[in-house]
């Protein structure tokens, strides 16, 4: 905790502040445009952060992602299209309010609850993460192996669609991570004789391919035009927000708790936090008819929840080095690129950096009020930018971004290939997040697995001998076999019904 002072000053460097400001504006812009997600904002930002100091790089990603999640609310309110999936839960309700001429108030509530949720989540992160790290310092390669397995499995199971497709996606990601030099012997593996693949498949071109190029392909094929915008005058969005917030204080508190709690869970991102919080708000509302006709109650709760979960999702990512969703997976990847290994020791080796990252959450969420206000004021112009112009422009930046990673065309080719792969996976309901997590964590998973196997002299039962490792190991194996047990149970009960 004594690192907070130096961390604060490191974050207050003019160059870092400028980066945060620019990244925030970029995040607001990308998040506000329907079809461009928060993950895409970050994927496009990563090549630029490659050239920055670690703190500036992560602070840029943090502020861009926080802003993009909030900015997704703007088209929800004005166009009835969520800007990012995290806003989808309350798009209907928000748009109904707009139709009643309350766009101003809804936007005001969105920006304030987003900032509030993000802030509380960040404070929780700041106090909770070091405590978890102290506990995590005692873990060995066995525990690390099981933690990673559990995280990856949950991510594959919880992801939208069928768990089976999530698992396939995860395994494909892990498989791609094995391309390159095998670290133990230094021999090339699965490189197909291509020298450029010796270093492995780069994370950044893959990211840009999956999250940006695939999106451009989808846009090229989409036959639906955007609906026309509600012509509402937007004046002072903060007018009347205070009393409404007080009225729905319980909902906001619920949203913050739900968001903070779901954030660290693997596989559950900001969108799931918003859905859960919205459903809870509906369950406990006093007036269900009013709620369903579009009321601020659910919007306030879910708006706080999605931003709170963005903050707290950094707990497993920074403490254990195990990301739970695409966004934190990117952050882990960036830390690796900077030669830093996230994990419990990062609190002792890089305290200034880690607290700087936590503080950047607070900074980003404070900046959200003025910048969010500006974005809402300019929303008419932002939403007017035609996507037919934007998409080709984005493609040029994708090309240079991928190229900048290793100054080779191989990266651009990898980007194209993964653009098509990402598009194909999405079309066939294969979630892409597990593949990304597998790609980021594949190397470490293999390393800890081999280290543990060597320590155990090939006896896999050794993996269960330490108390924590044993518990998590059994838990993970249970998660693995649950589908099988469920299947057998269903067959058995079917047979019993048939016999009776």
């Amino acid at each position, binding site marked *: 905790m004594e690192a907070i002072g130096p961390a604060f000053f490191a974050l207050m460097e003019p160059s870092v502040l400028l980066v945060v400001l620019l990244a925030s504006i970029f995040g607001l812009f990308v998040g506000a445009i329907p079809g461009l997600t928060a993950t895409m904002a970050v994927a496009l930002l990563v090549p630029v952060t490659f050239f920055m100091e670690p703190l500036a790089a992560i602070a840029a990603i943090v502020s861009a992602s926080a802003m993009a999640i909030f900015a997704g609310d703007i088209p929800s309110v004005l166009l009835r299209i969520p800007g990012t999936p995290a806003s989808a839960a309350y798009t209907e309700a928000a748009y109904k309010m707009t139709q009643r001429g309350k766009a101003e108030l809804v936007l005001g509530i969105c920006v304030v609850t987003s900032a509030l949720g993000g802030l509380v989540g960040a404070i929780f992160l700041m106090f909770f993460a070091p405590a978890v790290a102290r506990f995590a310092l005692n873990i060995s390669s066995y525990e690390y192996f099981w933690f990673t397995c559990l995280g990856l499995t949950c991510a594959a199971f919880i992801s939208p669609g069928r768990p089976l497709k999530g698992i396939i996606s995860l395994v494909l990601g892990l498989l791609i991570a094995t391309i390159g030099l095998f670290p133990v*012997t230094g021999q090339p593996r699965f490189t197909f004789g291509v020298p450029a693949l010796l270093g492995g498949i780069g994370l950044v071109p893959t990211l840009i391919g999956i999250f940006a190029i695939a999106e451009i*392909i989808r846009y090229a094929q989409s036959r639906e035009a955007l609906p026309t915008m509600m012509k509402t005058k937007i004046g002072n969005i903060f007018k009347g927000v205070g009393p409404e917030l007080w009225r729905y204080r319980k909902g906001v508190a619920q949203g913050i708790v739900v968001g903070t709690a779901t954030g660290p869970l693997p596989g559950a991102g900001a969108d799931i936090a918003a859905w859960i919080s919205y459903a809870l708000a509906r369950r406990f509302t006093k007036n269900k008819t009013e709620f369903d006709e579009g009321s601020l109650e659910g919007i306030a709760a879910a708006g706080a929840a999605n931003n709170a979960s963005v903050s707290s999702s950094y707990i497993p990512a920074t403490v254990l080095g195990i990301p739970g969703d695409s966004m934190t997976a990117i952050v882990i990847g960036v830390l690796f690129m900077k030669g830093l290994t996230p994990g419990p020791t990062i609190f002792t080796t890089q305290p200034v950096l880690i607290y700087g990252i936590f503080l950047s959450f607070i900074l980003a969420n404070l900046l959200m009020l003025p910048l969010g206000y500006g974005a809402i004021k300019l929303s008419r112009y932002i939403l007017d930018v035609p996507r037919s112009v934007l998409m080709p422009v984005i493609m040029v930046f994708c090309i240079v971004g991928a190229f900048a990673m290793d100054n080779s*065309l191989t990266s651009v080719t990898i980007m194209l290939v993964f653009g098509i792969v990402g598009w194909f996976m999405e079309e066939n309901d294969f979630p892409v997040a597990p593949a990304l997590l597998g790609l980021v964590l594949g190397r470490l998973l293999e390393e800890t697995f081999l280290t543990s196997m060597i320590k155990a002299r090939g006896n896999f039962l050794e993996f269960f001998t330490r108390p924590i490792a044993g518990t998590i190991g059994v838990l993970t194996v249970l998660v693995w076999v649950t589908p099988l047990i469920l299947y057998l149970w269903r067959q058995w009960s079917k047979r019993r019904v048939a016999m009776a």
Partner: protein
Amino acid sequence: MKVSDLIMGPLIAALGVTVLVASSMQPKPVFGSAYGGGFFPSILGVVLVVTGLILTATGWRQRAATPLLVMGNWVESPRHVANTAIVLGALLFYILTSGTLGFMISAGIAVLAMLLQFTRKPLLSVLVAIATVIAAKLAFQDVLLVPLPWGILEPFAGVLTWRL
């Protein structure tokens, strides 16, 4: 483009088998442990084979209800087919020509083709294409010092480098 599980399953299982074969060809370490580069991938291969077979089974059960291949409704519209072709074509064009033509010309042509196809407004497309290429060049080549290929513009590299 939605492919039935009945096709996806065998493909994934086949990939698993390929991974298993490739893993078995990995050299085994002479000293120390018995775990070579093929050990971990072979586990992944097994998982792929198993999941591929399960996927095939579910595809088989639903074979009456789901067609083998469903294309999106974009294939019925020539304009959207052209859109898709231009996106992929522009990227391929850049990959193939940027070495000889250089970043500015290759990327300029690629983005111009996309803009023309998407907007159908020539003047706007040309202006946006030029602005985009210059912005990308300034940000990445002049500020971040990424060596974007010069190609045939190499003789003018000195004039075209705008450092502060």
